[in-house]
């Protein structure tokens, strides 16, 4: 929608091409038409950005107005009579195109945008096949502005979209426009190069091929790719990214990621990671065959050899020293189904509660506080429309780029108020209406101050009047969303939620990786089952398989490592995690029988006795929950020969151990499907039966490797996960809730929380294997190196 305040109660009626349409007062003509299926072509107009009125493509005839008007800048008025496809209009568009093409290189056959170019589409539609111009085209060589961004001036149609999205949307303001008339160029902020966030927003918003990316340029033609919308694998915000893949000799290769259909919770946004950091998938260091360590060296093995060895060793260990001697470390990047399955397997097959993961936020405390106060969590989408946001800790611009975008959007488009409480000067203070810079580590004191303990102000080192103003302004807000980083843990979270719920606030607890929230919700804890049922509590009986779970909590991650060092833990199974990188001094990894599932030989994997090459998010199906609790569907986009999803690996190990796989994943369920015979007249139409059963979680699952079986089970058993399956299947985000859980007795261990410390250009292990991210990190490192004075 355009930047016009709309009064939903007042509608305006007008006539377009003889049709009567109506839309809220203040709506721009171009938007009103769009809402009624009437397309008005536009280059410079872009919903959500300021109006430019530069390209003249949107000219329409309006009765009683002497000249044609730009539909992108004209608000609708009562009784307006508009023609959008009259002969005059069509002529005008044709003339505009002719002028745009006058100096256009027409190098469509090699242009990245060829086949998905708005200029091509318009020319195709309106003609302009002939040109009255015989002048020599003025050529400029293309320029590389950064490791990501290239600019090819002759293709540019000067729509200013890039300039506006970088400035208004990203608040980076790295692009400008210089010179005048046909000599105009888009100019980067450092003369001949860019110093910016490398998000690629400018590239994807460019209607033509003038801005291109280092990672995609001249790589393929758009029609050679298949596009699959799935969830970004990097941070905890859960952007939908559309993965473009094409066949290659290793399976199928990812050639680009973008958000071409704007259908995700991120709408227009993706940061550099969601757009360009997919290249680790094809890193030559990726392992695609199972490895077994023999005499201190890795040798390739077949999957059955490797799996059999793992199963045999697990069985041996169980028999010799019992379930307490096996430890399992799960992942923040695997799917909900994989996490659920992993802990169910550990608990019901291996018989141990020794399971944990790298915790980057204190979700148990959060869940307890939310449930106890019957408070609500906020979705990522709600942030963009919230009238007020309180941000305590974190630096979203670096750690939660989508959240930062949402916050900026709220401030820019709704004049929402942002309250920043932080120990550092974070970039979002540029949007803030109130800022309290507090002493490092005093976030909990701030919460205590908010809750009424004025004495706590003494620790903050902030001027009392600043605090008072902020507190009073906050208490007058309604519709507040409170967002907090890992700085707040344990009781501070309880205090914050209890304060916020009194003023009707909603909450977001920030964690670092793509499925940290899912890992927590699915019970990758030694003392918590899925849905935060305490191991030792009574509520756990809600889980059908809970009777098989040992009654006492297991070892947490640190104690598992201690156990590995002392010999108490004989076998350690690490799924998609790299604890050795966080505890480099710890020698525990070389002692037990170590199984590692990962993509690369990480610090942890180096010590493995068996290495199982795993697929990553874009190579598998399932669901993930972002840090706000938004559940989204992961769709399999690409494929690499040799690797298997963690889901399949777990099932295969279970089978070899001798577990009843059907109990882990009840795949021989119902037989509702009729295999097509009985549909009669409906054959050839959409399979309504399949749609019906799928929507209700009743679909027949005939393969144990279908992760949706586990999703069926999750939505039945895990509190807050009973979401609409049909919506989810359609690609819509579904909200999960924390209120249905039983807050009493949820144990939490704030001391176990350790933020990942990823910044805009880093992403744990994945980032280290991404050439694109490394090139940007490298550039920025060079840029900040002190220049020697001469």
């Amino acid at each position: 929608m355009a930047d016009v305040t709309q009064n939903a109660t007042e509608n305006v009626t007008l006539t377009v091409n003889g049709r009567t349409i109506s839309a809220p007062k203040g709506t721009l003509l171009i938007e009103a038409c769009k809402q009624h299926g009437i397309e008005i072509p536009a280059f410079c107009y872009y919903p959500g950005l300021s109006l430019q009125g530069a390209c003249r493509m949107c000219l329409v005839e309006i009765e009683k107005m002497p000249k044609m008007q730009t539909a992108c800048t004209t608000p609708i008025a009562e009784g307006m009579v508009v023609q959008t496809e009259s002969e005059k209009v069509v002529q005008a568009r044709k003339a505009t195109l002719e002028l745009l093409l006058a100096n256009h290189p027409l190098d469509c056959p090699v242009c990245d945008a060829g086949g998905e170019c708005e200029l091509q589409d318009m020319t195709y539609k309106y003609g302009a096949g002939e040109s009255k111009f015989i002048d020599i085209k003025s050529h400029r060589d293309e320029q590389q502005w950064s490791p990501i961004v290239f600019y090819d001036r002759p293709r540019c149609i000067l729509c200013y979209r890039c300039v506006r999205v970088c400035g208004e949307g990203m608040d980076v303001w790295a692009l400008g426009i210089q010179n005048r008339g046909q000599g105009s160029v888009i100019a980067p902020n450092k003369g001949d190069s860019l110093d910016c966030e490398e998000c690629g927003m400018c590239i994807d918003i460019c209607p033509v091929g003038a801005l291109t990316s280092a990672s995609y340029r001249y790589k393929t033609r758009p029609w050679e790719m298949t596009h699959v919308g799935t969830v970004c694998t990097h941070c905890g915000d859960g952007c939908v990214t559309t993965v473009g893949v094409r066949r290659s000799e290793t399976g199928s290769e990812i050639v680009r990621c973008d958000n071409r259909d704007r259908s995700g919770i991120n709408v227009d946004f993706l940061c550099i990671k969601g757009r360009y950091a997919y290249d680790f998938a094809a890193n030559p260091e990726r392992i695609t065959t199972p490895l077994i360590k023999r005499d201190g060296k890795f040798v390739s093995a077949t999957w059955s050899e490797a799996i059999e060895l793992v199963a045999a060793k697990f069985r041996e260990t169980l028999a010799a020293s019992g379930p307490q001697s096996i430890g399992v470390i799960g992942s923040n990047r695997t799917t909900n189904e994989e996490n659920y399955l992993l802990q169910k397997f550990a608990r019901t097959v291996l018989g141990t509660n020794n399971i944990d993961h790298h915790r980057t936020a204190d979700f148990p405390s959060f869940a307890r506080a939310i449930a106890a106060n019957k408070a609500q969590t906020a979705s990522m989408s709600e942030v963009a429309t919230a009238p007020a946001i309180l941000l305590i800790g974190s630096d979203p611009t670096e750690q939660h780029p989508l959240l930062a975008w949402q916050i900026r959007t709220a401030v820019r488009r709704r004049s929402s108020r942002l309250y920043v409480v932080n120990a550092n000067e974070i970039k979002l203070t540029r949007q803030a209406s109130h800022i309290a810079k507090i002493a490092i580590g005093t976030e909990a004191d701030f919460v205590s101050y908010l809750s009424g303990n004025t004495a706590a102000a003494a620790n903050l080192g902030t001027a009392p009047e600043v605090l008072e103003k902020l507190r009073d302004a906050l208490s007058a807000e309604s519709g507040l969303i409170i967002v907090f980083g890992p700085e707040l843990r344990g009781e501070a979270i309880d205090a914050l939620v209890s304060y916020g719920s009194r003023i009707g606030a909603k909450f977001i607890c920030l964690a670092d990786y793509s499925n940290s929230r899912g890992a927590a919700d699915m019970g990758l804890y030694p003392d918590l089952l899925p849905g935060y049922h305490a191991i030792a509590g009574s509520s756990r009986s809600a889980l059908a398989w809970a009777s098989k779970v040992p009654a006492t909590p297991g070892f947490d991650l640190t104690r598992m490592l201690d156990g590995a060092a002392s010999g108490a833990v004989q076998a350690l199974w690490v799924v998609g995690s790299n604890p050795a990188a966080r505890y480099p001094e710890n020698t525990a990894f070389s002692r037990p029988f170590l199984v590692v599932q990962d993509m690369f030989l990480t610090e942890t994997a180096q010590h493995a006795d068996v290495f199982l090459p795993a697929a990553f998010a874009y190579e598998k199906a399932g669901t993930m929950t972002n840090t706000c609790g938004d559940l989204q569907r992961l769709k399999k986009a690409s494929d690499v020969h040799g690797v298997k999803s963690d889901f399949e690996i777990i099932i295969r190990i279970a089978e070899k151990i001798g577990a009843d796989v059907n109990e882990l994943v009840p795949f021989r369920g119902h037989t509702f499907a009729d295999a097509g015979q009985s549909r009669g007249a409906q054959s050839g139409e959409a399979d309504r039966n399949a749609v019906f059963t799928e929507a209700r979680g009743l679909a027949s699952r005939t393969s144990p490797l279908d992760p949706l079986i586990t999703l069926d089970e999750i939505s039945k058993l895990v509190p807050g996960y009973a979401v609409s399956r049909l919506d989810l299947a359609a690609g819509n985000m579904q909200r999960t809730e924390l209120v249905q859980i039983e807050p009493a007795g949820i144990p939490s261990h704030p001391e176990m929380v350790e933020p990942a410390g990823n910044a805009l250009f880093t992403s744990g292990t994945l980032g280290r294997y991404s050439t694109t991210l490394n090139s940007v990190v490298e550039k920025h490192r060079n840029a900040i190196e002190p220049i020697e004075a001469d």
Partner: protein
Amino acid sequence: MKFSEQLEARYSEMLTHYPVKRSLLVPFLLYIQDEFGYVTDDSIEEIAKRLEISPLEVRNVISYYSMLRTKPSGKYNVQVCTNICCQLRGGEEMLGHVREKLGVKVNKEVTSDGIFSVEEVECIGACSWAPAMQVNYDFHENLTPEKIDQILDEYRQKAVQE
């Protein structure tokens, strides 16, 4: 970066002229140019800081206006009009003559001795006395090649004497 006292005084006074600070950008850039001969990199940074806009934005504006320079001009900047009235009365020939006499080819080129620079400009508002040119802030009208020779010689002499 330091502005002269006079320029500082001008800045403070101009600040009071406009409802938004950034509005003084264009006029003030002209004063900067008068003080330094062109808009220097340092002064771009300085003015950006003062007006709370990015240096890139200042450069965008400078590039839009042909009368703003980011490189030094000659001591005397000869601006020859070739817009419609002057063109009809020989403006282009006058420009050609100036260039030939001073031995420069491209627009805004500075002579090797640094005394002159030659710029082709649009209408300078002296149409009634076309063809016309402007040297720094002085107008010269009803030009002929002979008149141009004489004018330029005078400026050269002035430059040598100083």
